[in-house]
């Protein structure tokens, strides 16, 4: 399960997608919308994605993780559109036989996703908005 969606992410569904009889561990990462950034209150977040390339890159990252760790199943779901405080922007789930690999693989996926997947985040404040990471 590797997708981009405009609907709220169903975390339970993402976890169910990596259930496997050979798995002793599932690690799940949920990236949620914080109420502030650098001490400035955030009102809303807007995520924009280059859908086709983003899904391709997310699948590539999942495949890279599978090559590095003994992964049973992996799921990566990213949301786009307007998100409110507390909403999940991304949910990643990885199942492995033993726990250490589940942590390492899941962290690798979110770290790499943030570097290469063409998704953009606009933070909307009371008094303006900014595309995150766009400028030095």
């Amino acid at each position, binding site marked *: 399960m590797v997708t981009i969606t405009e609907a709220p992410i169903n975390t339970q569904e993402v976890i169910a997608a990596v259930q496997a009889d050979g798995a002793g561990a599932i690690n799940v990462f949920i990236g949620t919308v914080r109420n502030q950034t650098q001490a400035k209150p955030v009102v809303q977040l807007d*995520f*924009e994605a280059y859908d086709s390339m*983003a899904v391709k890159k997310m699948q590539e990252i999942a495949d890279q993780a599978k090559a590095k760790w003994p992964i049973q199943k992996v799921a990566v779901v990213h949301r786009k559109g307007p998100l409110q405080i507390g909403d999940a922007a991304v949910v990643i789930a990885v199942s492995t036989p033993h726990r250490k690999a589940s942590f390492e693989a899941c962290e690798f996926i979110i770290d790499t996703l943030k570097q*290469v997947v063409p998704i*953009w985040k606009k933070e909307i404040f009371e008094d303006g908005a900014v*595309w995150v990471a766009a400028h030095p």
Partner: protein
Amino acid sequence: MQVKIALFGITKEIIGSSKLKYELGENADVNNLLERLKADYPALQNLNSLLIAINDEYAQAEQVLSEQDEIALIPPVCGG
């Protein structure tokens, strides 16, 4: 040749559209395109990074463009 460029995030705001048509010389490469864009839209020069994707893949500076390519301008990404 004429190429179509998809725009996202801050590049969409800078250029004021989600698509751009551009006339380029034959055998123009990624570098030529980036130089033209930065000249026409100087605000692009202030970005942390600016990449070109061709057919859903990050492109090298010397990669030659064709009219059939699906080209996208990729400002600094920030998913998750």
